[in-house]
């Protein structure tokens, strides 16, 4: 992928070279980029934790391996969490943390990304469709540095993943609802990944009892057994699924592998994890949430923004990377879903 990007980025230059020079240099470039690619991807193949640097910036984020396996999805608490059913999940990496404003702001403002990079952005990154720069303060006074990015739509979260892909050459995407719950449970079968005692939540999560009504800098609490920080509380996290309240009732026949609920309509989208304003009950690992049109209620413009929810300061994202990346075509299909108009 990296060398494909490299070649595309240098297409104009290539066209200017005469045929003789091209035939001479192309094999050399291919060998060098193939070597760089192999060298760069080597540690990833070992399915270990790794740090993803974001090129042309000082930002990076950590990814932790989530081993494949089978788990019991759902709970007996709420109707939409039933029945509890078996689901098989393929291995993937997941972000150890929620994506911060420090990273998200590079994506949302190309000129800012450009200013930080101090050299021209690659053509594809330059041409990417970006969020409208929000007229409102989307941090809602809660700060940026180390704080989770908030208020983006599912479309915005997906386009952020695309930006990451164009920057790094690695397929990042949103977790499915099943992947999210599997990773959050981390092999446990209790209310929380650490057991059933809500009194212990404060060690692991920011929620209504300890957050002071604001988002908190990532990674200050203990992680879950698979190394995921703030997986409960702080901000809710986007999944790539549609929220379908009776989805689980249709999965009783067989053990489904990597179930997905593709987006058919703008609302409701599937969201997980509770947030800084949630009660302990809403921080349960099986608790399901969904997006609402009313979160754009106070957007004074029509059409309403495809990118922002002015009234969802509790909603963020965490990325995943499947261990086995799909084909280039599948990747582009995933990212290039057109936005759905919102009045």
């Amino acid at each position, binding site marked *: 992928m990296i060398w494909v990007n490299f070649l595309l980025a240098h297409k104009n230059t290539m066209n200017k070279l005469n045929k003789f020079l091209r035939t001479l240099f192309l094999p050399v470039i291919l060998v060098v980029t193939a070597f760089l690619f192999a060298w760069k991807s080597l540690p990833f193949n070992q399915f270990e934790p790794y740090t993803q640097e974001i090129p042309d910036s000082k930002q990076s984020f950590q990814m932790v391996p989530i081993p494949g396996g089978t788990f019991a999805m759902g709970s007996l608490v709420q109707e939409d969490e039933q029945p509890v059913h078996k689901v098989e999940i393929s291995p993937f990496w997941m972000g150890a943390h929620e994506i911060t404003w420090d990273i998200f702001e590079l994506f949302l403002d190309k000129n800012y990304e450009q*200013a930080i990079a101090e050299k021209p952005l690659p053509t594809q990154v330059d041409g990417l469709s970006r969020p409208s720069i*929000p007229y*409102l303060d989307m941090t809602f006074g809660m700060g940026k540095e180390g704080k989770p990015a908030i208020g983006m739509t599912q479309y915005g979260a997906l386009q952020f993943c695309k930006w990451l892909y164009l920057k790094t050459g690695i397929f990042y995407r949103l977790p499915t609802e099943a992947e999210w719950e599997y990773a959050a449970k981390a092999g446990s079968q209790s209310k929380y990944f650490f057991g059933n005692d809500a009194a212990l939540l404060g060690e692991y999560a920011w929620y209504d009892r300890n957050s002071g009504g604001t988002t908190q800098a990532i990674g200050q609490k203990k992680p879950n057994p698979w190394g995921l920080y703030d997986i409960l509380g702080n901000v809710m996290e986007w999944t790539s699924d549609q929220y379908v309240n009776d989805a689980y009732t249709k999965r009783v026949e067989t053990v489904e592998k990597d179930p997905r609920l593709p987006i058919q309509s703008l609302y409701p989208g599937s969201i997980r994890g509770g947030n800084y304003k949630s009660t302990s009950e809403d921080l349960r690992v099986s608790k399901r949430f969904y997006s609402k049109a009313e979160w754009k209620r*106070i957007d*004074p*413009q*029509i059409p309403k923004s495809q990118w922002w929810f002015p009234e969802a300061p509790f909603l963020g994202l965490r990325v995943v990377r499947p261990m086995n990346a799909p084909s280039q075509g599948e990747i582009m299909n995933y990212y290039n879903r057109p936005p759905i108009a919102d009045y």
Partner: protein
Amino acid sequence: MEYLNKNPRRDFLKTSAIVTGGLMIQPFSLSGAYAAGSDEIKIAVIGCGGRGTGAVFQAFDTGHNIKLVAMADAFRDRIDKSYEPIFNKYGKDKVDVPEERKFAGFEGYKEAIKLADVVILAAPPGFRPDHFEEAVKQGKQIFMEKPVAIDATGIRKVLAAAEEAKKKKLNVVVGLQRHYQDNYRETVKRIHDGAVGDIIGGQVYWNDGGVWVNPRQPGQTEMEYQMRNWYYFNWLCGDHIVEQHVHNLDVANWVKNSYPVKAYGTGGRQVRTGKEYGEIFDHHSITFTYADGTVIFSECRHFPGATNRVDERFQGTKGNVYLSAGNHGILTEWGGKEIYNHNRDNNPNPYQVEHDELFDAIVKGEYKFADAENAAKSTMTAILGRYATYSGKEISWDEALNSTVDLMPERLAWDAMPKVLPNEEGFYPFAIPGKTKVI
């Protein structure tokens, strides 16, 4: 000259008209079809961008019997982009805008206004004085967006038309929507009742990352380019201190029940220096002094990557105040005891409330809203701030309001030239404090 406001405090009290304000509710009659027995209210929208379109939605969503009959915008494509979602959502019974009532160009607003009982004025701010003046002249009920002008010349026009609107008993609601937002209403009411004593200082902010840019297209005239990027040109926008920060300065004036007598400050272009950013500054930092000696500190900037802050804080003799558009409204005694903390959940949408209250008054035949004068003076506060940062000099309210500098082009047409033009490399001249004459 009435607009030379020698006693801002008394004048404010006399003219402020936010529901609980000083205006007597007086009946009036609507002209046209509405008065002739139909309960249908005809509206026209002038300026069909995202905000104008949004305001049309809000007018419909009041639930009254409203029909959109005319649309005007300088750009034909803007009319079409606006018409489509309006028609799709509200349908042919509510949207009756045939080709001959879609007015593209600079002059179409006059015809569009004629066709309506109520007009929505949402073009870029530079056009507002002319549009408002025309709507008042034609005796229409008015919703207009903030800010209401971009220089003192425009402000004087708006103030004169505001007086005329009062004489004609025309309801005028201005989109300084904090006046229609519960946390502000409830908290400011308590401040005025003395909950934190006399307000003796404050800090108001609009610090965030900036707004959109539309790249220059081949074949665009200079006029079209500037119109497509109106945010970055003072004759259209007034700089972000006027276009955005007017909200926070307006809150300071509201809380103080007054307008500043002078301003002193600094500003410039520090991080947003590209040619695509026209002539406006990226930061302004100002102290506004009020007649009683109170100093309000104001700061606005467009710095991506830096910490955002959009809110208002005030200090009183007995306690302090925190307000934000995120429904904060907190009054605290010195020492920390909470006096009032507005419940942030389930507050009404202020953009909708503006229209609900305006159309409710119109349907009942009541004269309740005269927002234009305060909007003009709060806009003038922001313009005064810009004069101070652009010049680097202390400038008084009276000097500023009497400035005869007129930023508008001599002629409005696609082939006409705005007054500020790019150099050979495409960069626009911008103000240099200590050197630039602004008033």
